Structures are given as C-alpha cells and as structure tokens.
C-alpha cells in the first residue's frame, strides 16, 4: 500500500473495510475502523507505528489529567465566594498550563527531532566548515512514520481543546487512538478536530445509498485529477526542475505553472478520494480546498487552499499569540498612535510571522520551504501595508474595485504570485529556486513554444491536449461550485440514461487517458512527505 490511488487501497482495502463495517453491529463499528486504521498504518510504516501509539498514550494521559484538574477546580469554585474565585481560577490555570505545555512540547519535540535533526545537522556542519573548524558531526537521519506531521497537529489540537475546555477528553483509549490514526486522514489530512470527528467516528452511523453514490462520484473525480492530469504532467515537470539549466526562462515559468497545477490536482484529488471515501461511510470530512485559484489576494488564497492547516495555525498560533498579554498591550497602544489600520497590524504581523515560519517548517526541512513560508508572509504583510495607499490610488484614478475587470486582474495577479511561490517550493533547494527565478526574469523567451521544444520533454502534443481537456473540465466544475451550485445534485436530477452515460464517460476517460501502466511513473503523494 503506498497511497489512496493504489489498487491495494481502491480494490481491496476500502471495499473490505466497507463490507466489514456494514456487517458489524453498530456498537463495535468504531473498533473495526480502529483495526483498519492500524492495519493501514502498519502496511505503510510497519514498526514505526510505535511513534503513533506513544503519541496517543501521551495525549490520552495528559488530557485525563487536565480534566481531573478542571473538576477539582470546579468543586472548589462551587464552595467559595465570588471574590475568591478569580484566585482559584488563576491557580488551576497555571497548573493546567504547565501540563499542557509539557504535552505539546513532547509532541512537537518528537516531530522536530525526526524531521529536522538532519537539516540542523547539515547547517551546523556548514557553519563549522565556514569557520574552518575540523569537526565532523554525525548527521542523523530518521525514517518518518507516515502522516506524523498530520497526526501531531491533531494531537496538539486535541490537547489544547481539552485545556481550553472546548471538549471533554476521551476516556476510551481505543476511541482516542482511532481519532489519532483514522486511515482516511492520516496520510495527507485534512487535519481534523476532535469535536468534528468524534461523534461520527464512534456512533457507527448507518450507511446511506445516496451518500454512497456521492462518495463514488467524488472518488472518480479525484482519480481523474490525479491519474489523468497530475501523473501525466510528472515527467515534464521533473525534467524542467531537475535540469533547469537546459531551458530558457519561458520554459521554466511554464514548468512552474504546470507544477502549481500538478500540486493542486494531486493534493485536491487526494482530498476528493479522502472525502469521497468518507462519504461512502456517511462521514462528513472537512473540505480542504475551496476553488483556491479564484482568490483575489494571497491571504484569501490561504483561506481556500489547505484550509485545515490554515485554520489550525489560526486557532493555535495566530490568535493565542496575538492575544497574549504583551501583544495585546501593544495593539491597544499602537491603535491609539497609528490608527485603526496600522495599529493592530504590528502585533498581528508578529503573530503572522510566527505562523508563516511554522508553515514553512511544517512543509519540510529545507531553506526553500522556509523561504516559501516567509515569501507568503511578506506578500500578506506587504498587502496590508499598502492597502490604504492602494485604496487611495484606486479612488484617485477612479478604478472601480468591484468591476469584473479589476477582479480578474486581482485573480491573475494572485495566481502569478502563487506560481512563483510554488517554484521555490518545488525547486531542489533554495539556490536552485533562486537560479530558476533569475532565469525567468533575465532569460525569458517564447522560442521553445514556437519551435515545439515544449513537446519534446516528456509530453507530446497529444498529452497536452488531454491535460487541457481535463483541466478545463475541472475549471468548469470549479466555476459551478464557486457560484454556489452543487454539480452532483444537478446530475442526480438528470434522467438515468444521461446520468449513467456521464459516469461511463468519466470512467472510460480515466481508463483510457490515465497516465498509468508501462512508461509512466506516478507522482508520489506530494503532501504525504510533509
């Protein structure tokens, strides 16, 4: 088993789990899901499942302790007078805070050691050699258990939610283990919250025929995105990014554009499979994408792309930081001095900086990822800084901000900025990214497109035609979704002949035009490596 697109998963694992799930009495269905999830994890990461189990243990114990402290506090509060309550609150707050900090530090610590010790080692080493110190350090490297970046964030959110008394901790260890390991969200997310998942995972809900059909449709759609588009683009993108010196700026820019497309198709296609698989079981898993390429600004883009990660950062880094006492004071002070716009911007930006640094680090241990994070931070900060100025400019030049043309301009601008970001994201190291970017700026030409060099690296004319058709299909569906209409409800109202023809066409489209079998190397699940 390697991904949700493997035959193992689609033809064996998922159907088997579905059948057994329906055979199980409702009360024990969650147990089956737990077994399936652990089997899934084991099939991919083997013994590394110990990391997952130990993380679950830590979270389980700490959460129960937190609850104990909370109930002690509540008992005391009932007895005491109002005037004393505040002191009691603060006392127990501190007690809880110590515990929860320890828990979060352990969880993040394990992730950090596994993920970054190699990166840190290499950088220390290069500092040594810069200083001409004859020290060689052993650079450690660990094999990462699958999904560690995702389940760690889920674990932290669970602990913090218990601490904030948003949720009651789970007493059943098995049930908590299921939340931490659920096979649909373990590889590439979405990063789910306990409050969203717990009831559906544990209640053993009844499977409905309509949901089942919706789920199948969604899985097919995801398969199309991944197998027809992302996998077909793979060879081209690989060649450009691996051998960027051989191509001019035009081709590199085109490569970056195609990579952005591939990343979206791969990641959102996986999410379609995840959410679709969930629908088969009548689970409602949070959407992770909302037509991101219709965003008008970078910050809007990040509210539409990898939504669950953005929300996590917002809830557990941005607001806690910006509302910590020192930053809060700064906001009040600055607002009086610099006004409504620039006032909160200062403390907000400090918090935002931390968010994007964390975002860069979360994506991987490499300078290009950190650059990627800070690039977006700079764009968002820059946008905020010039907002009053651009507002004034617009009204001065009488540019209508609500006109379609202006929106179109914004969407294209945001798209270009995103593509540049993804160029660095995909580049093999920051240095390669910079070189590629410089080439785009200084060596831009469209010759490769006119002399058809573009058709000679991994994709011929026919490949491009298929990709264009498939992308247009996704584009049209996105427009419909953006308008707030539901494509599947429309389809379900059509007569059966039309409906089935549509399904058959989609299936045949995938089977015939999919980039699988001899001659194709499928893209590894890109986000599973983060």
């Amino acid at each position, binding site marked *: 088993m390697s991904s949700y697109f493997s035959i193992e998963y689609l033809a064996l694992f998922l159907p088997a789990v579905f059948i057994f799930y329906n055979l199980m009495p409702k009360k024990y269905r969650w147990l089956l899901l737990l077994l399936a999830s652990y089997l899934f994890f084991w099939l991919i990461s083997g013994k590394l499942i110990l990391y997952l189990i130990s993380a679950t243990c830590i979270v389980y114990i700490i959460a129960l302790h937190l609850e104990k402290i909370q109930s002690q506090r509540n008992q005391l509060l009932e007895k005491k007078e109002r005037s004393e309550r505040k002191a009691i609150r603060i006392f127990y707050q501190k007690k809880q805070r110590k515990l929860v900090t320890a828990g979060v530090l352990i969880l993040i610590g394990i992730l950090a050691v596994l993920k970054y010790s190699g990166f840190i080692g290499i950088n220390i080493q290069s500092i040594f050699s810069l200083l001409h110190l004859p020290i060689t350090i052993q650079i450690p490297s660990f094999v990462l258990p699958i999904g560690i970046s995702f389940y760690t964030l889920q674990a932290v959110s669970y602990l913090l939610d218990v601490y904030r*008394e948003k949720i009651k901790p789970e007493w059943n260890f098995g049930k908590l283990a299921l939340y931490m390991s659920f096979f649909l969200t373990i590889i590439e997310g979405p990063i789910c919250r306990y409050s969203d998942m717990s009831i559906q995972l544990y209640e053993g809900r009844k499977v409905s025929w309509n949901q089942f059909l919706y789920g199948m449709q969604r899985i097919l759609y995801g398969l199309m995105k991944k197998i027809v588009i992302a996998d077909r683009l793979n060879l081209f993108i690989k060649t450009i990014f691996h051998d960027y010196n051989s191509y001019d700026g035009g081709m590199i820019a085109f490569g970056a554009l195609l990579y952005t497309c591939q990343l979206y198709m791969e990641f959102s296609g996986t999410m379609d499979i995840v959410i679709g698989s969930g629908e088969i079981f009548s689970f409602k898993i949070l959407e992770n994408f909302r037509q991101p390429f219709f965003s008008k600004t970078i910050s809007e883009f990040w509210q539409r792309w990898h939504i669950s990660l953005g929300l996590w950062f917002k809830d557990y880094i941005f607001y806690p930081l910006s*509302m910590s006492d020192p930053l*809060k004071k700064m906001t009040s002070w600055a607002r009086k001095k610099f006004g409504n716009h620039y006032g909160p911007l200062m403390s907000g930006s400090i918090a935002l900086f931390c968010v994007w640094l964390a975002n860069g680090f979360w994506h991987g241990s490499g300078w290009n990822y950190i650059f990627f994070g800070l690039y977006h931070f700079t764009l968002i900060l820059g946008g905020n800084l010039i907002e009053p100025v651009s507002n004034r400019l617009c009204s001065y030049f009488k540019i209508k901000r609500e006109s379609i043309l202006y929106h179109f301009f914004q969407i294209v601008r945001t798209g270009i900025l995103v593509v540049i970001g993804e160029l660095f994201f995909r580049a093999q190291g920051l240095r390669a990214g910079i070189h590629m970017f410089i080439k785009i700026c200084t060596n831009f030409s469209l010759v490769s497109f006119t002399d058809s060099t573009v058709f000679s690296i991994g994709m011929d004319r026919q490949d491009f035609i298929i990709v264009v058709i498939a992308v247009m299909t996704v584009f049209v569906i996105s427009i419909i979704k953006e308008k707030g209409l539901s494509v599947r409800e429309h389809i379900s109202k059509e007569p059966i002949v039309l409906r089935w023809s549509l399904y058959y066409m989609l299936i045949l489209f995938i089977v015939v035009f999919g980039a699988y079998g001899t001659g194709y190397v499928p893209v590894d699940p890109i986000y599973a490596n983060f």
Partner: protein
Amino acid sequence: MERLYAILEDIQPDVDYKTCVTLVKDHILDSLSILSLVAEIEDEFDITVPAVEIIPDNFNSADAIWAMILRLEEN
C-alpha cells in the same frame, strides 16, 4: 451595548451594526480588526477574552459579541 457600538464604530465605521449578522463572513471584521476589537473590549469591560472564544459565531453580529461579553463578565 451602546459602549460596544461605539467601539465597533471606532474600529470600522459605516456599518449598520444593529442589523448586520455577517460581520466575519463578509469580511467586515478581518482578523486584524478582531485583534483591535478584543483589546478594546477587554479594556472597556475588564474581562479577558480567551483564544477559544475567537470563533466566527461569536463575532458575526454585535448581539453575538455582546452575548459573549456578558458571558465572560459572569465568570
């Protein structure tokens, strides 16, 4: 309640706070204005707004904000 309207008016003028129930949803209050708002509310009403309260539901209308303030004052 009037004190809250005053704060809101100060942060983001020209909004009909009495009727609007989509302050966050329609991006009238963005994350930065919420920062200002929270800081002002805390000063004005002598409460602390914990991070867990920062959810769209609590900020989508003046009434919701007011309800949150009352709840926090209770404690």
